[in-house]
């Protein structure tokens, strides 16, 4: 056994916040990363993953503690470490106005890579990243997945002694994620480079050799993912819904149960993590099928135990988000109708003859990689963009003619936080209420209502810009619900959110749908498709498949893979479509 590459003892880092006060980004972190294999840092937003990685890269100094990387004291000689490691920051750090080749050359020059080594290295990097045909393209014109691969290639121009990747797969589609992991696996196998990666994807963490679970600047657990999964041993089950109940309804019901730590829809059933080993009488009538514990189960148990302050999912009846109750459940009535919708930006066809229907009370998901056309479709549905051609009906109103009428019934939560950072929570709500035309007692009542339901009262005076990620999202959703819309559009609402916050979000969406609100969401977390009644998969502006989650999953059904995940299904659908397109071109 060789010496570990990273050894940290009692590391602390405190940041001053703009609002005054301090934030303990790292509170006594100790860790040890072995010389071989892939290690992962996992944890919710703000748990200190990036701070720790930057510290290891010598970009941040610790307030206290000791950190040794490759046997070098980081505090004493950060440059010696920076001379020897490869690092890809969260936003890839590429020069967008330089071409792929120029970016690579720059980093090769900076690392002092000789011409001979380049001649041998470049073809291999190009083969690995499949960027060969694009060497002349400006980095700014690459897709998210390609940027990520170029960032990785830049970090690998000289064989590093340690590779640090800060959240490289955030906002990247499953196909690109899988390719990145293949590159990393090859790197570890062929060159034996130790890799430390931070991620919010638990399935990625599960395949690593070593995992460090973080929470609010502290380490909750570290070790092999299999060993950590044992925390959940004997507490994980799967149950099928009975009769008419949909998996997401069952999931919502179970999550409200105090003896349940976590419940998530999965493959048409619900995966349950119990607080303690359940007795026979628990969950009357449900057939519980024990399943092996996974890393994700243990992660949820650890996070929930550590975070006693985080309110458990609302219990009892669904929160009354509407004054006027619509009757719940999916109706036959079509509220959103899209046919042959096309949007062109100059030569570029962003949305290419897509069509789908959404029924009242349904949760409908638009899934696809970045650039698939999800957000463009959304903006057209909300009347923010004019369609080039096609039919677009929302709740009986033709959006191409009477936008204002249609908009009154819509709530829209944009991808980025689009409220006012300089206004407090209460001021933001007040402003949006008046923008929707609410006044007087009605306005006060609605504002009180959403603040109750989203537990925003304690934060009423906090500036929007100072809220933590999860609370920003709550506020945005509260603002979109002030005018009691019949249809709610949520664009990439869970992008960048941690697993715990995502569960909360879907709990709220579920409750809304139960009250008859039609919800349309976009997401690139494929697993979240399980929460939807129906989904459509988009790629390059076209709908590749649509239907209930079970139908979509069946696309990837093979003998070798009897229970495909949504990720498998997505990859299968996209690859089939691309292969068909290639054949079509060849013919």
């Amino acid at each position: 056994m060789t010496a570990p590459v990273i050894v940290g003892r009692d590391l602390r880092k405190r940041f001053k916040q703009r609002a005054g006060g301090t934030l303990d980004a790292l509170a006594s972190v100790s860790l040890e990363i072995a010389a071989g294999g892939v290690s992962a840092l996992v944890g919710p937003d703000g748990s200190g993953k990036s701070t720790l990685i930057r510290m290891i890269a010598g970009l941040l100094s610790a307030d206290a503690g000791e950190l040794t990387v490759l046997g070098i004291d980081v505090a004493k000689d950060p440059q010696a470490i920076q001379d020897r490691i490869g690092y890809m920051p969260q936003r890839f750090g590429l020069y967008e106005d330089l071409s792929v080749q120029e970016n690579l050359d720059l980093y090769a020059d900076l690392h002092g890579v000789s011409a001979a080594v380049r001649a041998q290295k470049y073809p291999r990097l190009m083969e690995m990243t499949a960027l060969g045909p694009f060497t002349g393209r400006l980095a700014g014109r690459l897709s998210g997945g390609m940027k990520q691969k170029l960032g990785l290639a830049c970090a690998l121009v000289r064989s590093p002694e340690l590779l640090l990747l800060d959240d490289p797969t955030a906002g990247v589609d499953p196909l690109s994620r899988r390719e990145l992991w293949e590159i990393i696996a090859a790197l570890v196998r062929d060159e034996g480079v130790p890799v430390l990666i931070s991620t919010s994807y638990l399935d990625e963490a599960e395949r690593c050799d070593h995992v460090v679970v973080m929470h609010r600047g502290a380490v909750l657990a570290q070790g092999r993912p299999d060993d950590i999964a044992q925390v959940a041993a004997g507490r994980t089950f799967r149950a099928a819904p009975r009769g008419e109940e949909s998996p997401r309804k069952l999931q919502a019901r179970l999550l409200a149960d105090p003896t349940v730590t976590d419940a998530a829809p999965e493959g048409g059933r619900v995966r349950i993590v119990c607080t303690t080993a359940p007795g026979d009488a628990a969950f009357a009538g449900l057939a519980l099928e024990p399943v092996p514990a996974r890393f994700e189960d243990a992660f949820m148990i650890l996070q929930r135990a550590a975070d006693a302050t985080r309110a458990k999912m609302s219990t009892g009846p669904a929160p009354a988000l509407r004054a006027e109750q619509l009757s719940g459940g999916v109706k036959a009535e079509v509220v959103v109708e899209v046919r042959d919708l096309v949007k062109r930006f100059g030569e570029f066809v962003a949305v290419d003859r897509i069509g789908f229907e959404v029924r009242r009370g349904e949760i409908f998901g638009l899934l696809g990689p970045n650039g698939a056309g999800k957000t463009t479709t959304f903006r057209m549905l909300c009347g923010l963009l004019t369609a080039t051609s096609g039919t677009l009906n929302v709740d009986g109103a033709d959006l191409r003619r009477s936008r204002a009428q249609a908009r009154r019934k819509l709530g829209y939560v944009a991808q980025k936080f689009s409220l006012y950072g300089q206004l407090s929570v209460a001021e933001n709500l007040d402003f949006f209420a008046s923008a929707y035309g609410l006044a007087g007692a009605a306005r006060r009542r609605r504002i009180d209502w959403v603040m109750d339901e989203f537990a925003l009262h304690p934060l009423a005076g906090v500036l929007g810009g100072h809220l933590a990620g999860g609370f920003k999202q709550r506020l945005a959703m509260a603002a979109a619900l002030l005018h009691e819309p019949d249809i709610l559009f949520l664009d990439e609402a869970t992008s960048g959110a941690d697993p715990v916050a995502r569960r909360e979000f879907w709990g709220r969406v579920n409750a809304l749908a139960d009250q008859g609100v039609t919800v349309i969401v976009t997401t690139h977390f494929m697993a979240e498709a399980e929460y939807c009644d129906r989904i459509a998969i988009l790629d390059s502006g076209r709908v590749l498949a649509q239907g209930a989650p079970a139908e979509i999953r069946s696309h990837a059904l093979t003998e070798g893979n009897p229970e495909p995940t949504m990720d498998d299904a997505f990859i299968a659908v996209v690859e089939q479509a691309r292969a068909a397109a290639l054949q079509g071109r060849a013919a």
Partner: protein
Amino acid sequence: MAATSPGPRLAAKTSRIVALIRKEGRQVLRDPSSFAIGVVLPLMLILLFGYAMSLDVKHVPVAVVLEQPSSEASEVAAGFQLSPYFETRLTRSMAEAEELMLAQKVDGIVHLPADFARRAAQGDANIEVVVYGVDANRGRFIQAYAQAAIAQAGVRRAAEGRSDPTAGGQAVVESQLWFNAANDSRYFLVPGLVVLIMTLIGAFMTSMVVAREWERGTFEALFVTPVRTDEILIAKIVPYFLLGLGGLLLCLGSARLLFDVPIRGSILLLVAVSMLYLLVSVSMGLLISASLKGQFLSSQVALVVTFMPALMLSGFIYDLRGVPLAVRLISYLVPARYYVSLLQSLFLAGDVWSVIIPNAAVLAVFAAVLLALTRLTTRKSLG
């Protein structure tokens, strides 16, 4: 790590700097905003100034006060009426003309008194020229043209064998510049233009490109390489320094061709002090962006801290001898002030060592202090 001899180490350092400079150059050429600030804006400033100086003083409205028509007086008035430089309005009294001037209907008054013809015959005719001088530059031009128009009338008379009422002290042109009598620099524009362009490229542009690297996270990736802080700084200074020199050549060329401004001092000295000022200006830009790290804020601060003082407190627009003591004291902290002094003397007076040595010395101290501060503030750290 095995100790390497200084030779290869220096070679590695040089190749890293060259790589960074090459990158910077490509970015300037490709990024529309750097191109706009580095090349288009200086060109526009030069053309604007050139246009204002060469074309703006045509068709100037003037009032010609003809108190008593006579052949001599009419001839002078006709000279104005025929000139392409003036739009003439004939009036009969000075009061009427002054009213027109105060209403800004005319920019100048040519006063031919009632006794013009009689005194012209006696040989001591008087023509009063009054110019609206709020815009000092324009005022000077109107004054000069008016004198030329009057002189021409005299030459014509002389050529026709008659006596010239304005020649040989017979007629005295009395010129007054209203509202801005203290203006004493005829060529203040060109040195000012040079200062503005050097400041713009040096401070404003550098602060923007450095802040952009912080903002886009490109520095973060760059830091985790063998690159050293001083190499990053050198690679940021050199391209914008060169771009600034390009701007200087543009200005000097236009000074000769467009503005006809003399360069009485040595060009070599002019370039040398400009390099000194560029160094000051670039390091101010680096210092601002290293401490603020946001593109928008950096460019705003750079504008307020460098460009505005260069415009207003350098002695380019306002004569510093005329400003209140407090403002004058602040102006001593503005590097542009020393550069303006240097430029004015090198352009208009020549190599006046008693001006050049102290001002250049102050600029050198500024450059040294600012560069040292920049080196201390810029760290390969995100904290």
